[in-house]
């Protein structure tokens, strides 16, 4: 895969950014984007490209979607909300805090273990007693997706009896966001974890082993994005969302392990 941050290119990009800064029109806006923590790398990069194109300044607050939703319900100011599940977006819409959403990416789960400690017996080994499994908490989209996948695995009958119950018994921590989960496997602190495919960042890749889940037990989750009602920069916010859904935005998302918008 071609890396986009070669020295020549980043110099050109910096020059371009500088040019735009110098010639920026008065229309430059400061955008605040609240985004699910699984989007940290992809949206961060999209934001940088978007800023260099438009002269806007985009800032991000990454956290678990449910934390962000709570903050927004309690009056936090932001222009855009990119959630990892519709379940955390729809309530904002019904409370009149957010505009209509559009889906901009999809994601699937994967199982991680530290590179040096593979699962014994493949995915069925998740139920082996004594394994230290960490997952995202029940209120977090990744946690909801994990629960769904576990019950589908259980129903498939391919992973042994009472799979969900035995796997649940191995959970040693329910983390507030999915990036915390990935971090702890990368540090070797846990034996296994459910994370999104997009959480497999370059920094993590050498330290972990991944186990693909069959698509039949791993339905994709869709990410909604929308302009928040309190936004003072609604036009720039809409432009940001258009850029995320543009072929270029989608390419960046795919490079970070997401599936394209449905």
């Amino acid at each position: 895969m071609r890396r986009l941050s070669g020295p020549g290119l980043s110099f050109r990009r910096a020059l371009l950014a500088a040019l735009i800064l110098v010639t920026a029109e008065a229309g430059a806006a400061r955008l605040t984007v609240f985004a699910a923590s699984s989007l940290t790398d992809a949206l961060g990069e999209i934001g940088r490209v978007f800023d260099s194109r438009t002269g806007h300044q985009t800032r991000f607050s990454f956290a678990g979607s449910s934390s962000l939703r709570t903050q927004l319900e309690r009056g936090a100011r932001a222009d855009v909300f990119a959630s990892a599940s519709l379940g955390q977006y729809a309530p904002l819409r019904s409370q009149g805090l957010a505009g209509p959403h559009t889906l901009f990416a999809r994601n699937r789960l994967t199982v991680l273990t530290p590179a040096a400690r593979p699962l014994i017996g493949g995915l069925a080994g998740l139920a082996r007693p004594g394994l230290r499994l960490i997952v995202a908490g029940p209120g977090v989209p990744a946690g909801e997706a994990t629960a769904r996948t576990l019950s589908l695995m259980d129903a498939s009958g391919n992973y042994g009896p009472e799979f969900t119950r035995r796997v649940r018994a191995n959970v040693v921590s329910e983390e507030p966001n999915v990036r915390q989960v990935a971090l702890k496997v990368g540090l070797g602190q846990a034996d296994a974890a459910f994370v999104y495919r997009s959480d497999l960042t370059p920094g993590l890749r050498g330290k972990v082993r991944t186990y693909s889940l069959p698509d039949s037990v791993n339905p994709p989750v869709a990410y909604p994005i929308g302009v928040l009602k309190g936004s003072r920069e609604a036009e720039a916010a809409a432009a940001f969302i258009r850029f995320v859904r543009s072929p270029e935005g989608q390419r960046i998302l795919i490079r970070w392990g997401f599936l394209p918008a449905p």
Partner: protein
Amino acid sequence: MSRAPAPHPVPVLLSALMVGLLLLPVFALLLEALTPALGRTLQSAAVRDALRVSALTTGAALAVTLALGTPVAYLLARRQFVGKGLFDALLDLPMVLPPVVAGVALLLAFGQGGLLGRPLEVAGVDLAFTPGAVVLAQVFTSAPFYVRAARAGFLAFDPDVEGAARVDGAGRWALFRRVTLPLAFPFLLEGAVLAWARSLGEFGATLLFAGSLQGETRTVPLAIYSAAESDLAPALALSALMVALAFGVLLTLRLIAGRRITPAQ
């Protein structure tokens, strides 16, 4: 005595601003938390588990702090050795370190892949995601508060008192228990209260180092954080409880300070 002139309005106004800034958030919290449903919320399983985990871990952390911190404070107060100044300063480091940094540092030292990960594993000590990890995070962040106060306590009286008792034939342990400890006691108590309060509020290091599981490692602050993601009611109830405890801590410290000033004759 002549009456002091009326204060200038500017400092009064600025003071009012400061007081408002400090007290308004607590007031707002209590305003929302103190509802008739508070009692019922405090009896929910999530809240009860969090209280139990916090009580047990902060209790254990305090015991470790007292057992290991008292000798450190005593040696620092009584002995001279090379590098004492530096050592003294370094012991305070966890106090000013951001808790999240403490969490990362603990992971890198005692975590599975950390510096002592392998030796600990060989020794059969498995801290990852256990209440033990919570205690370790609490000791790391709170013990310096105790050591600092205890050291001041051992320095607060004339060591000649100890010398006199020794001349009178008191053994080392009797000397410490009968003379040193009672004289330093108000300071030790103050340090213990401060350290306990700090470990009760410990959040960042615990979340990173010990994870968060209800009934195992999810202390009150972690429970507040995870509840705030879905249902604010338990978060508010626990927050109100923390305010009450914090108030109790302040009151205790006041009482101790009062006792310290009165000479114990």
